[in-house]
């Protein structure tokens, strides 16, 4: 391993600009003559728009233009789309209601976009916005996930009677039910996977610009996937043809899924820029982010696990109601279906699985992928079920898991996916040792002596990453492919630009991708630049989500490097007067096998462009190659996280005493960055388990719409983490990468809840397990213990 190649904890190249304040985030961009946008949003969860009067507002100082849904409709701008078609159990397609970029006739959640006010300054736009008079006909609101489809509820979209979007299922129901009938023991649980608000620290922002000379548009936007934004805005919304629309996603301050989607504000800004022939800038404030960024999770689930007389799991069944909010966001339909039910086998050999999912509309913000997207929800179901089953059967939870682990690979689950490789026992062994599981009884006793409750919780999670094999996902309803593209451009002096369709918004691609290239070509890492986030520069791309940038994005780069190497060998053959097949490439040098004849990388690069010494009718000049990589399978990162908590029963305060994570991500490019990804994921998962929860009241007002009301994990809420790895390299990509971005967020919520329920001795603890929730649970435990 070289100091900067694959496997080295290279310090990040991109850090210098971030630690010196020289990053370029969208809100840092200002275009000549720009005007500023303010969005007038609905204060009601559900209402008809009876009249909009902006006569007074239009006269306010600095106002340039005011547009409403009528203007969008007049220009035939299409509605925002959901790009994954789900078919219901009865064969009918999902019922997607129209989602105009500015509300037309009706608003469906608090924060829904009613008008855009554009003025010379933001303050002027906002002041004018407050003068707009809108008559609303307020309708009853639907906000509760579990009861959204019950008779008598308000109807949100005409196309979706009873607010039902789809009733989808997966697996063999009859075989699963038969296995339950034959079971020795059945564990049943009811779970709520609490609704979360992603809250990347950088709020969304957009600057739309129109160039009348070329009749083309440029959108600077906070996106995880600028090419997808471009194709949706072109092909579905009709903003401009793709060749006339440039989308630039510069430095992006975190996404966690929430910046995958194509939103109303960005769409309206770029559309309006052409209307007024001036750049239009909008930056979300945090309250707007709470109201209108797509939220995550929000499942209500009943799940059951069947176990035979030998303690083997024989079947799992789950019924889930998934709240998709007021409109179907870009990927929303896939999250509670294919990103959820496909993972219900967990790390276990479960012969029969059946899942049924009802997706429902409510008068709340759209819900879509948030870190893990469906997989945390699946893991919460599986790992709570397994934990509770072990407890009910009087089995050690670690050993009950081990007894049911899948041990031979490849393994075909009953829910579509085929796990290529893994070693779940090895991760468990290592985690048990690191967590000092043997000492837990003594530590529980020591806590009890202080009047505290101590508990330990396991989570043996799995996820499917590297989305994904195009034919497979296409057959499941995906509207796009799952490939990634790369171009490796060798300059005349041997420095290299890599243009990638992946997008970095904290993951450190400028470093990890450069490690791959520097290692392969034997050149200094400083000589490699990674270019991403600009549709005019980068050929094509699907963007970054679901830990696809390593397994898919880097493999595309690797494939392009293969082509570069092959061509360079041809040129070297001519230069060294040898057959290309006799050329070896190592450490930046091309050598004729068995001789001392060689040429270095820089000279070869120069020769490739000088083109003096090889026949250009046989070998084209230049050294630049591109590749598309379409994966053959998903990747399956897995691991074991162990959480140990101490609870003060007087206050309900939960202290995480130890966190042990042993993950299998296959091969690692940069262990330092991988650890950082795990830390961040765990923090978001602990946030979900203990602190975070979006709350709508029954009128549909979001009562957790600021950092004062929605509890973001802060430094003193969290522990330090003990993070380690085992490795079974992935077999479906040549680099052996599985991906690490979501692991922590997927693993941690059940680990925390399993620890708390272990401590209090009963299962009735919901997320977020705030001090109040835990205090009540602890009192129940104490009362029960006293009675016994």
């Amino acid at each position, binding site marked *: 391993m070289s100091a900067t190649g694959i496997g080295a904890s290279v310090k990040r190249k991109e850090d210098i600009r971030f*630690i010196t304040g020289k990053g370029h985030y969208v809100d840092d961009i200002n275009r000549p003559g720009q005007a500023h946008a303010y969005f007038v949003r609905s204060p009601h969860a559900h209402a008809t728009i009876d009249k909009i009067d902006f006569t007074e507002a239009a006269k306010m100082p600095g106002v340039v233009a005011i547009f409403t849904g009528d203007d969008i409709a007049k220009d035939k701008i299409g509605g925002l789309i959901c790009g994954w078609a789900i078919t219901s159990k009865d064969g009918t397609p999902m019922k997607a209601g129209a989602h105009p970029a500015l509300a037309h006739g009706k608003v469906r959640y608090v924060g829904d976009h009613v008008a855009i006010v554009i003025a010379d300054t933001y303050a002027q736009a906002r002041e004018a916005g407050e003068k707009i008079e809108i008559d609303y006909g307020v309708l009853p609101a639907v906000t509760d996930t579990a009861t959204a489809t019950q008779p008598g509820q308000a109807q949100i979209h005409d196309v979706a009677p009873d607010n039902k979007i789809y009733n989808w299922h997966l697996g063999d129901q009859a075989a699963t039910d038969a296995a339950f009938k034959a079971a020795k023991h059945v564990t049943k649980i009811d779970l709520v996977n609490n609704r979360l608000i992603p809250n990347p620290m950088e709020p969304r922002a957009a600057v739309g610009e129109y160039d009348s000379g070329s009749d083309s548009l440029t959108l600077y936007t906070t996106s995880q996937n600028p090419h997808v934004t471009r194709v949706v805005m072109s092909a579905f919304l009709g903003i401009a043809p793709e060749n006339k629309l440039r989308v630039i996603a510069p430095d992006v301050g975190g996404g966690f899924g929430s910046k995958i989607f194509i939103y109303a504000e960005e769409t309206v800004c770029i559309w309006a820029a052409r209307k007024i022939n001036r750049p239009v800038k909008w930056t979300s404030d945090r309250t707007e982010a709470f109201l209108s960024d797509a939220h995550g999770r929000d499942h209500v689930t009943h799940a059951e696990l069947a176990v035979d007389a030998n303690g083997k799991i024989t079947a799992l069944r789950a019924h889930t109601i998934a709240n998709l909010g007021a409109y179907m966001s870009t990927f929303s339909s896939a999250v509670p279906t294919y990103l959820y039910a496909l993972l219900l086998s967990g790390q276990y050999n479960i012969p029969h699985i059946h899942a049924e999912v009802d997706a429902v509309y409510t008068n709340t913000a759209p819900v879509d992928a948030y870190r893990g997207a469906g997989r945390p929800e699946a893991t919460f179901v599986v790992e709570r079920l397994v934990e509770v089953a072990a407890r009910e059967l009087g089995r050690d939870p670690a050993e009950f898991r081990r007894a049911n682990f899948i041990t031979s690979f490849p393994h075909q689950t009953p829910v579509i996916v085929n796990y290529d490789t893994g070693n779940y026992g090895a991760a468990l062994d290592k985690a048990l040792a690191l967590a000092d599981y043997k000492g837990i009884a003594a530590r529980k006793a020591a806590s009890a002596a202080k009047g505290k409750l101590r508990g330990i919780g396991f989570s043996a999670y799995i996820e499917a990453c590297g989305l994904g094999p195009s034919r497979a996902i296409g057959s499941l309803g995906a509207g796009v492919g799952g490939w990634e593209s790369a171009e490796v451009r060798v300059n005349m002096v041997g420095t290299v630009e890599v243009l990638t369709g992946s997008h970095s918004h904290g*993951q450190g691609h400028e470093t990890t991708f450069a490690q791959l290239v520097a290692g392969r070509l034997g050149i200094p890492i400083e000589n490699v630049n990674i270019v991403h986030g600009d549709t005019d520069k980068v050929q094509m791309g699907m963007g970054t989500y679901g830990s696809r940038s390593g397994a898919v994005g880097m493999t595309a780069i690797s494939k392009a490097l293969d082509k570069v190497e092959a061509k360079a060998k041809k040129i070297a053959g001519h230069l060294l007067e040898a057959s290309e097949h006799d050329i070896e490439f190592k450490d930046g040098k091309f050598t004729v096998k068995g001789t001392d004849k060689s040429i270095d990388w820089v000279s070869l690069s120069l020769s490739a462009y000088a083109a003096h010494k090889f026949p250009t009718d046989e070998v084209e000049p230049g050294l630049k190659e591109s590749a598309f990589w379409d994966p053959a399978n998903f990747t399956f990162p897995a691991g074991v996280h162990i959480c140990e908590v101490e609870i003060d029963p007087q206050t309900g305060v939960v202290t995480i005493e130890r966190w042990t994570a042993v993950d299998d991500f296959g091969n690692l490019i940069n262990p330092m960055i991988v650890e950082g990804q795990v830390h961040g994921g765990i923090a978001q998962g602990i946030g979900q388990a203990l602190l975070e929860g979006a709350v709508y009241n029954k009128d549909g007002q979001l009562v957790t719409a600021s950092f004062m009301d929605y509890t973001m994990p802060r430094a003193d809420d969290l522990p330090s983490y003990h993070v380690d790895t085992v490795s079974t390299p992935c077999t479906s990509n040549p680099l052996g990468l599985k991906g690490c971005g979501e692991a922590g967020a997927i693993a941690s919520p059940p680990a925390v809840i399993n620890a708390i329920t272990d401590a209090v001795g009963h299962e009735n603890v919901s997320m977020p397990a705030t001090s109040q929730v835990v205090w009540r649970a602890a009192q129940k435990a104490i009362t029960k213990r006293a009675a016994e």
Partner: protein
Amino acid sequence: MISVSMTVNGKAVSAQVDPRTLLVQFIRENLRLTGTHVGCDTSQCGACVVHVDGRAIKSCTALAASLQGAHVTTIEGVAHDGKLHPMQQAFQDNHGLQCGFCTPGMIMTSIDMVNRLGPSLDETTIRHELEGNICRCTGYHNIVKSVKQGASEMGASHAKAAE
């Protein structure tokens, strides 16, 4: 409009601004120093922390007009002579940042923490002191390590300067 004059990163600056202009708006929009970020509207997140007369403040909580004559340091002003401040270097060394958005505020808060509490800081103190700065990426583990290293190196360079 109202006239505002202050010193920012050692340079005298002045401008005519709307009296409602917050310090962070003055820094970002008038001076185009965009390293100071805005992450919320309730003074909770700390992405906008700068130093005013040597003390860390959230620049979204102060009106520019109230800081007539003040000495302000932003993230752009902490490196000197082409050399990173030890706290900046510590954040890179320990992978104390991912997306980088909260980082300027984190660094400014951390430098202030060391200025107030000295260079030997334990984990509990660091975590408590970072309470006003939110990071969504790192889970804080590596930020805590960064602050520890930055603090001890600030201590060492002070000691060296005193010799």
